């Protein structure tokens, strides 16, 4: 989920599409779509329609997702906390016991 949120946070105003997210996150559709549905259900993402003329494009308009303002703030806090959790320990604390330097 962190990978998906990171993509949305790179440019919160940018609508993202399913296949684009698959390419950017390296996730398969079977993992990505349940996650998008979960985030949408939680109110973190809103859905929109691609702004194209289907006749001119020769294909139907796709559904896109955008992160909401409140969710962007919450996601930043959550990702920072996650990053803190996985930060490597401070080198000084790794000194062997008994060392004086």
């Amino acid at each position: 989920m962190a990978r998906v949120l990171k993509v949305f946070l790179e440019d919160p105003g940018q609508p993202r599409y399913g296949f684009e997210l698959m390419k950017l996150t390296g996730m398969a559709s079977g993992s990505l779509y349940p996650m998008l549905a979960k985030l949408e259900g939680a109110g973190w993402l809103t859905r929109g329609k691609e702004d194209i003329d289907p006749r001119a494009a020769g294909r139907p308009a796709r559904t896109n997702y955008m992160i909401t303002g409140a969710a962007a703030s919450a996601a930043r806090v959550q990702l920072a906390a996650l990053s803190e959790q996985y930060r490597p320990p401070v080198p000084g604390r790794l000194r062997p016991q008994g060392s004086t330097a």
Partner: protein
Amino acid sequence: VIGFLWAVVAFLGGLGMTALGDMVSEEVRDRLDHLPHAILHLAARRLNPGQRVTVYADEWLPELTYILKGDEARPVTRLVKGTLYALGILVSTRRITSHLHREAPAPAPLPQDHHYVSAAWNRWFIANRSDDVFARSIRQSLQDGRSKGPGES
């Protein structure tokens, strides 16, 4: 003369085989092009009617069309990408719909009687009796459950 005739027959035969090969190849290509759509259609059958519009028609199908018609859509690439996309959705349809709260009608609730059927099965299994006993046991469990109410056990 006979040699000449054989040469003509061989030439015509070769021409026919080439044409047949082309037709078979076109047929296979056409059928393979429909494979991702067929898989996605299978996934759509697991959705309720409302979700078939909001999820399948509005989201999955346009995305698959985009993948199949995209700039990088070479025949094999689009087949592989489209099929993987559709397969991924097919295997995770239940997980997707469990999180969806779109304007789709709620699925029908599961019948509560399955608890009593399960209890009947346990009784029959322990007793190891005939199917008649199992059928009577189901009826008895259903009656018990209805007389007690669904909240009581």
